[in-house]
Every structure is written in structure tokens, then in C-alpha cells.
């Protein structure tokens, strides 16, 4: 429960700092600057009063890493219970709608997709839970490209990857609540591509990827996206993206997917590490 409360109400420091720097860069008196000012004020108010900083608390997505041989069942039950409790206490908006009957379950629990639970295993004794809250507006502008895509003059190379990402950012305009962060997966099948793109959003802004060449591409794509001039809220301005996080997956020789997961400025993520009797938030 505390993990959910913290994630919904307390924007991570790296995101807040990136937004503050974006605010500094915008022109005095511009709509972009005033939007960022409101955003920063909102972040502070939400933290102080322990209120969800955005009303769209999205689909709660939990990435759980367990020690080998530990069953996942009890963790699933615990997470669902916490989600119900967090919804009752208004930290989460009830978002789970049955697609057939149109009925909102009112407690954010529904089938296999509310909340989203992903399990992995490691050789350590600790339990690690990463929570990501991503709203529907930015999820809607996420996109997947199949290269080559000649409408974008995008071939199967890094130039093609870059053009695909820039197209996603251009097409999103202000609808994904920029300045945003894009998680990108190159390769994989369609499903794994989108999954990995979303998971890439767990990385902190400014945290370098393992390979130096990837860091250079990320920086180049971010700079070019910011040249599009879409700006905060799509009002026009200097910062459209705060970060680009690339991930590379193995792919079938026939397929070359570029999956782009667009995250709004309210990149709400938190990690809980549970070791022995004690849990710590990172």
C-alpha cells in the first residue's frame, strides 16, 4: 500500500529536476513556461498533501522479482489487496472497465490486466517490486513501427529507428502530456516489444545505458525531438522530451519492430526492496 501511495503522490527526484531544468530553458512569459510552473507547483502540493499528482493513475504495473523457488501466488494476492485499499483511500482512481459490459469494477481489480503483474526471478534472497503508474493519454499515443517504413523513409538501421521515434513524438503533439519520456524497444515480437519499451521507462533520467554508443543515440534523438518545437503541453517550446531510453531485443530476421512507449511528464515510478524483515523504497 505504501508503495502505491508513494508512487502516486511523490514524483521521483530525477523527473522533478529534469522538469525544473526544462522550466529554466523556456522563454519568459511563454505558455510553455507557465505550464511548467504549474506542473512544478502541482508536484510540490501533491507531495506535501499526499494526494495523487494526476487524477489518471493509469493501469498500475508491477514488476516483481522474486528469489528462485518462491511462489508468486501470495504476492499476487497481496498486491491485489493493496490496490483495492489504495483505491478505497483515493490514491488510485478506479480505472478497470469491463470491455464487454462497460462496467467499472470500482476497485481497480479486473482479470489479468488490472493490475498488470510481471514476474521475474533472481538468485538473491530479496524481493524487488517496481511500480509504474502510466496514464491513458500517453498510452494512447504510444506506437509501433514495422521497418522498413517508406512513408517515413525509415530503413532497418539506427536512422530508421530515429525517424520512427521522431514520428511518434510528432504525431503525439500535446496529447501525451509533454515534456515526456520515451521508452523504446528495437526488435522483439510485437508483444515483447511494447512490453520492453514500457519497462525501459523504469530507468532514471540521466542514468546511462550500458553501451556508450546507445547513450550517444539516446542523446541525439532527444535533441532532435526537442527541435520539433512541440514543447510543454504542445504549446510550442524548447522541451518536448526529457529523456529517450532505448532497449534492444533479439528479433526474427523477417521482423524489425520499433516500439515506442510514450510517458507523460508525470513519470510515476518507485522501487521497493524487501530483504528479510525490512522493506526500503528506492
Amino acid at each position, binding site marked *: 500500500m505504501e508503495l502505491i501511495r508513494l508512487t502516486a503522490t511523490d514524483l521521483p527526484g530525477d523527473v522533478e529536476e529534469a522538469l525544473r531544468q526544462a522550466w529554466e530553458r523556456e522563454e519568459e512569459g511563454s*505558455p510553455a513556461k507557465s505550464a511548467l510552473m504549474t506542473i512544478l507547483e502541482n508536484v510540490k502540493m501533491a507531495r506535501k498533501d499526499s494526494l495523487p499528482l494526476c*487524477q489518471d*493513475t493509469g493501469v498500475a504495473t508491477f514488476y516483481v522479482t522474486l528469489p528462485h523457488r518462491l511462489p508468486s501466488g501470495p504476492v499476487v494476492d497481496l498486491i491485489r489487496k493493496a490496490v483495492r485499499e489504495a483505491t478505497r483511500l*483515493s490514491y488510485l*482512481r478506479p480505472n478497470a472497465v469491463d470491455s464487454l459490459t462497460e462496467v467499472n469494477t470500482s476497485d481497480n481489480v479486473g482479470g489479468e490486466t488490472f493490475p498488470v503483474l510481471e514476474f521475474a526471478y533472481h538468485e538473491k534472497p530479496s524481493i524487488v517490486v517496481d511500480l509504474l503508474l502510466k496514464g491513458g493519454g500517453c498510452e494512447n499515443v504510444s506506437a509501433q513501427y514495422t521497418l522498413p517504413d517508406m512513408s517515413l523513409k525509415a530503413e532497418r538501421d539506427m536512422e530508421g529507428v530515429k525517424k520512427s521515434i521522431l514520428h511518434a513524438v510528432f504525431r503525439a503533439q500535446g496529447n501525451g502530456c509533454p515534456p515526456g519520456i520515451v521508452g523504446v524497444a528495437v526488435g522483439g515480437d510485437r508483444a515483447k516489444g511494447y512490453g520492453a519499451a514500457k519497462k525501459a521507462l523504469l530507468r532514471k533520467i540521466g542514468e546511462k545505458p550500458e553501451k556508450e554508443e546507445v547513450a550517444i543515440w539516446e542523446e541525439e534523438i532527444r535533441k532532435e525531438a526537442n527541435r520539433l518545437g512541440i514543447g510543454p503541453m504542445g504549446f510550442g517550446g524548447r522541451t518536448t522530451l526529457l529523456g529517450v531510453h532505448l532497449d534492444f531485443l533479439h528479433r526474427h530476421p523477417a521482423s524489425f519492430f520499433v516500439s515506442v512507449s510514450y510517458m507523460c511528464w508525470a513519470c510515476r515510478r518507485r522501487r521497493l526492496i524487501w530483504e528479510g524483515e525490512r522493506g526500503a523504497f528506492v
Partner: protein
Amino acid sequence: MKTIVLPLNEAAVKALKVGEVVLLQGKIVTARDRAHKWLYETFIGKKTPPSPEDLVAYERIKMCLAGGAIYHCGPIVKESKDGWEVIAAGPTTSEREEPYEAPIMQHFSVRAVIGKGGMGKGTLRACQEVPAVYLHAVGGAAVVAAKKVKRVLEVFKLNFGMPEAMWVFEVEDFPAIVTMDAQGESLHEEVFRHSEALFCKLISG
């Protein structure tokens, strides 16, 4: 900064220009995907016959919307013994309502549509005809927006679920910026065209 009191008259709405920051006072009605579809199909397109309860809601909604404002918002609202308390109430993406907005604006004489991301040609045309404006609130700034809601006056279609119900808010100094006006100007169109030219240059380079 300009204070505007709802409902708005024709002269007041025509005086608003793209880029102006406004502070709203009065009644605003939330409506998002299901509410738009319901309003359109039941009362305008007449695809589905209204229930007796729908007809009662319609009369109330008509009064709230005449010269008033629709807010694209799915809030977090808490029920307490003193009534409803608004916890978080930022805007949702407006473009999904594009298929319904113009006929709804015409039918109910809506003078302000509040949301985020801007809207398309149909809504822009309706802004000129009704006349009306599109007001952009800051996406994600839900606590700031919620603090400007003084009271929940009414709620309709709660069976749509909390985010999709139509909440009638009384607001004080609710901040927004005019991004589409009754003269047919749209900041969104301008940013789109500008970024389109730059995008084309980047991909051909």
C-alpha cells in the same frame, strides 16, 4: 490574466483570444468519452431512446450547459458524510471527443470546452459558429485544479463509473489558457504545422 464568469455571453466569448490566460468562476460540467457518446446518441443523433431518468438528467444538464463549460476530466472524487470531495481533477485528452463535440456544442450552446491537447477542425468551426472557445488546462496538474473546485453541485450518470460520470463543479479561479478562439485561431494548428515542417526536414535530411 482575465477573470471569466460562467455562463458566458456572446460578446464575452468573442473577446477572448488565443494565448490569453483566464481564471474561470462558476459552474463547469465534466464529460468524457462515455458522457459524450451518451449525450450525442441519446439526445442529438437519437440512436438510443432515453430512459425516464435520462430525460430528468437531460433537463438539468441543459441548464448547466447553456452558455456554460464542458470539462474533459475524469476526476478522483471521495464521498464523505459532508458530500463529495474532489481529490484530483486535471484534464483528459480532448481529441477523443472530436466526433461528438461540435454537435454537442451546438445543441447545448456550450461556450467553453476545457481539456488538453486541443481539438480538430469540427470543434474549431463550432467555436466560430456557437461562438465558443477551447480552453487548455495543464495536463497532469490535478491537485492544482482540484483545489479550485469549491463544491460538487450535482452528479449525473454515476453508473458510468467515477471517471466517466458527469460531475457539476463550482470553481473559483480555475486557470486555463485560450488555445482555440471564436475567430477560428488555433494554437494547436499552428504548432502542428510548424512541427510538421521541421519533422519533414529531419526525416529527409
